[in-house]
């Protein structure tokens, strides 16, 4: 899969916007959208939100997890914010669950097109990049040990589609090669 395709799938996620126009409910094949009333928040898919933002017809509200640190201890139990997520990711050896299966794509899209609606955009970018780097490093390690020890199968939890996509091609091709080499060796033995 191309990264562009993964991004396309990510654009189906819902995000809250505050429109400045009014429109009745529209019925599309994939579902209903709206109704839009100026000043009232409404949930729409990201592709529509970005388009409306570019045409200056709405204001984007960042998702709850897209924030730097915890506001208070009450929130701690329900959702974690990015600093916590990053720290936890660094502590654990395995992958921790991410707040959204498309956290990387959403961050990139929202920060590119709507950074004036998102407070502390630069810090968020850094934190998400840190988390991504940690996870991809873990993925590389595990892929490396997988190939080395010639395992037959492995199970990894809490990976997102984008991360799988980065190693996917390499991993499958490497394992193919290993298989070919293994089968070629056997008759000699």
């Amino acid at each position: 899969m191309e990264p562009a395709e993964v991004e396309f799938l990510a654009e189906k996620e819902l995000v809250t916007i505050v429109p400045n126009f009014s429109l009745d409910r529209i019925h599309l094949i994939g579902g209903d959208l709206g109704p839009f009333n100026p000043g009232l928040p409404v949930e729409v898919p990201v592709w529509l939100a970005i388009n409306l933002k570019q045409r200056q017809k709405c204001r984007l509200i960042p998702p709850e997890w897209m924030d730097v640190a915890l506001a208070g201890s009450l929130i701690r139990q329900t959702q974690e914010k990015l600093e916590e997520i990053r720290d936890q990711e660094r502590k654990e050896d395995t992958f921790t669950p991410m707040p959204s299966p498309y956290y990387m794509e959403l961050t990139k899209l929202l920060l590119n097109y709507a950074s004036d609606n998102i407070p502390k955009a630069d810090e968020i970018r850094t934190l998400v990049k840190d988390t991504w780097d940690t996870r991809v490093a873990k993925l590389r390690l595990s892929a490396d040990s997988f190939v080395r020890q010639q395992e037959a199968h492995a199970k990894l939890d809490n990976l997102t589609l984008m991360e799988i996509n980065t190693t996917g091609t390499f991993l499958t091709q490497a394992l193919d090669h290993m298989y070919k080499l293994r089968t070629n060796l056997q008759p000699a033995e």
Partner: protein
Amino acid sequence: MLLLLSPNPIGENPERVVQFAQSSLRRRDSRFSIGPRTVTSRPIGRGSDLAPSLSEGGPRLPLFRRRLVAAAMFVSDCRREFYDVIVSQRVLLLVASDVDALCACKILQALFQCDHVQYTLVPVSGWQELETAFLEHKDQFKYFVFINCGANVDLLEILQPEEDVSFFVCDSHRPIHVVNVYNDTQIKLLVKQDDDLDVPAYDDIFRDEEDEEEDSENESDGSEPAEKRRRLQEDVIERTMKRRQRREWEARRREILFDYEQYEYHGTSSAMVMFDLAWIMSKDLNDMLWWAIVGLTDQWVQDKITQMKYVTDIGILQRHVSRHNHRNEDEENSLSIDCMRIAFEYDLRLALYQHWSLYESLCNTSYTSASLKLWSVQGQKRLQEFLADMGLPLKQVKQKFNSMDMSLKENLREMIEESANKFGMKDLRVQTFSIHFGFKNKFSASDIVYATASLMENIEKEGHETTNFIKALDSLSRGNLDKLHQGLDLAKKQLRAIQQTVASCICTNLVISQGPFLYCCLMEGTPDVKLFSKPVSLCLLSKYLLKSFVCSTKNKRCKLLPLVMAAPMDVEQGTVIMVGIPPETESSDKKNFFGRAFERAADSTSSRTLHNHFDMSIIELKTEDRSKFLDALISLLS
């Protein structure tokens, strides 16, 4: 009451004429008076007592004009009468070649993109290109938008559009042609109402012509001879009275129109008008505000508006800037560093000083170079004294501004202002805005103006005319920083070339007084003369030259004279481009009479001239005709 009928309606469809007459009847009922904009006699400004003989002959304006009503066609509600009309149509944008027009075009393009309006953009640099573009596209478009062109001529006569074609004109050139003002149906002017327009009242310029017909019908029809004779006598008296009245009216009309159209000047920047439109629709962004600022600064850099108007407009923009950029940035909600921030600054008047070294900038800005007289050896010494007075070591001052010591840069503005006051430069600081985005991108509005103007008139690459225009247009977007930096380099070269040319002109006494005006002609072999074959560069050069000349000469009378500047334009075709600029005084009202003067002089000597530019004071003529043209001009103005 009919408006007009031409005496021989040959080829006219009589039904159409009748229909038209009836509809004009209906429209006539809804006429309203113009209000305070009645005739005011233009105050005789400086330099006009040098042109008394321009009062013979008047502007060529047809007395009787079809399709006119006594309603001024200024668009009162920009949104309803302009934007809502074109939002669902295909539009042709005709954009003139100056930075203000580019900025207005950018704002309009951004609005069009928001609403998915289909448009075609045609850059035009003169009347010929305008007409060609119009003829090419007139079958496909019904709505034309003119940006910084078209207000000061009779558009209907030049372009001859169909009945259903609409023109929207957003132009800062003044005076607006009376036909454009009083046309009800086809021409709509996007002009701020509080600009001092002084349009003559309708009744003083146009009149109904039913009297014409009655005269021709006054033939004797059968009756008794005695009665006939008496009636004839009465008729004759009546007719002579009417004729005298008409002659008086026509004389007054000529005078009024002459006063109105004598001087050229500039009104509010088109970019600011477009930004107003965006603001009314609540679609204004920081980007558009920045373009409006650049448009206004372009008018100031090119000396097109008075200081007072500039300060007033800066005040208006300042309110918008504080509205957009007031966010209190603290720990809780800090804006991304990539977001654009505009800041109001009371900055130095030195051109490009943040992208150059301070020394170069001092040498190449006309204000400092003229005040310190840097073309002479003494001037150079004064510059050294100036720098020493401020305590800036030469080594620091000659390196790139960004690499200067922080301790020197901190109070630079105040230090320079103090020292400048001692050396006679009282206006070294000016109110302006600067933009700041990313970690290393900080530009002042005048930097952008110089860069964009140089890109637009770039002579280095011999490409199609419009590629330079498009490149300059692109450089105004934040994403095209490489083009902007290229423009800055070109601007530095241009400023250096201008200063060197000015220095050589003054040192070799090339500026001669011809009586009513000063005259300077650039010879072909002059270095960088190709740079000055473009109108905006030549205008900039002339203004700087005049400033420097005024500082260098001791002749009090010469200080008040306007300047006519000539430079070779195309060597193969043997043409010369000539520019006339008003005199340089402290409180000049920037009104230029050379437009009309050039026209009259060209007529009287039948020189081969081309009045192609939207500014009437810029013409092209054949090199051979130059001397007789000048002689005619001298006799005209003395």
